C-alpha cells in the first residue's frame, strides 16, 4: 500500500525531473529559468517532506528569491533571444548524451549500492533541527561560516567591478 507521503514524494520528484528536462528542451533562456525555479520549488517541497524546514525556506528565499531573480534580471537586461542551435563542437554533439548518461549512471549505481542500508529520513521537530543547525554553524563550522561571509563580500566587490562600465 502506498502511503500519502510516498505519493507526495513522487509528485514532487516528477515535477523536479520535468523541470530539469524542460530546462534542457526549452529554447528560450527565460523559460529555462522558469523550469529551474520549478525544480527548486519542488526540491524545497522535498526538503519539507524530509523535515528540513529551514533548508526548505532558505532554498526558496535564496535560490528562488535571489539567485534566480538575478538570472531573470540579467536575461531581461541583456534581452537574450532564443538560443541559436549551432553545432560547432562535434564532440559535444555526438559524445554529449552518452557521456552525461554514463556519468549519471555511475553516480546512481554507486549510490544505490552504497546507501541501501540507510534508514528513511526521519522528520525531527523543525525547531530542533533548525536549532541544531545554528549550533553547528556557530560552534563547529564557525570558521568556514565567517570565511563564507568574507567570500560573499569579495563576490560583491567583484561583481561591482565587473559590471561597471569603464569610463
Amino acid at each position: 500500500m502506498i502511503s500519502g507521503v510516498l505519493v507526495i514524494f513522487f509528485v514532487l520528484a516528477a515535477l523536479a525531473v520535468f523541470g530539469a528536462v524542460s530546462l534542457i528542451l526549452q529554447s528560450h533562456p527565460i523559460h529555462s529559468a522558469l523550469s529551474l525555479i520549478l525544480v527548486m520549488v519542488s526540491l524545497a517541497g522535498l526538503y519539507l517532506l524530509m523535515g528540513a524546514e529551514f533548508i526548505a525556506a532558505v532554498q526558496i528565499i535564496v535560490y528562488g528569491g535571489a539567485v534566480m531573480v538575478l538570472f531573470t534580471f540579467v536575461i531581461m537586461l541583456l534581452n537574450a533571444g532564443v538560443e541559436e542551435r549551432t553545432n560547432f563542437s562535434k564532440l559535444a554533439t555526438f559524445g554529449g548524451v552518452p557521456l552525461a548518461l554514463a556519468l549519471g549512471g555511475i553516480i546512481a549505481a554507486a549510490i544505490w549500492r552504497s546507501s541501501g542500508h540507510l534508514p528513511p529520513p526521519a522528520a525531527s521537530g523543525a525547531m530542533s533541527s533548525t536549532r541544531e543547525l545554528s549550533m553547528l554553524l556557530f560552534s563547529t563550522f564557525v570558521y568556514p561560516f565567517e570565511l563564507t561571509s568574507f567570500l560573499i563580500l569579495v563576490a560583491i566587490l567583484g561583481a561591482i567591478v565587473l559590471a561597471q562600465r569603464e569610463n
Partner: protein
Amino acid sequence: MVPTNYYVILSAILFGLGVLAFVFKRNIITIFMAIELMLNAVNLAFVAFSQALGKADGEVFVLFVILVAAAEAAVGLGIIILTARNRRSLNVENVNLLKL
C-alpha cells in the same frame, strides 16, 4: 516513509540532467543554470543523508553550498554581462578565442 535511496537516486538523475544541460546548451546563462541545477541535486543528496543519519552537518553544508552558489551567481552573471557586452552574443560557441 520514503526510503533514502529514492531521494538519492532522484538527486543522481537531476545531476545527470544538469550535466546534460551543461554540455548541450549554447546559451551562457542557461549553462550557468545547469550548474545551479547540479548544485541543487547535490544539496538534495546532502539533506537526504543528513536527515537519514540524524545529523545536521549535511544541512550545514547545504547552507554553505547555497551561499557559495549565491556568490558565484553574482560574479558569474557579472562576467556574463561583460561577455555579452563585448561580443554581442551569448552563444558560447562564438566565444572561441582559444581555437586553433
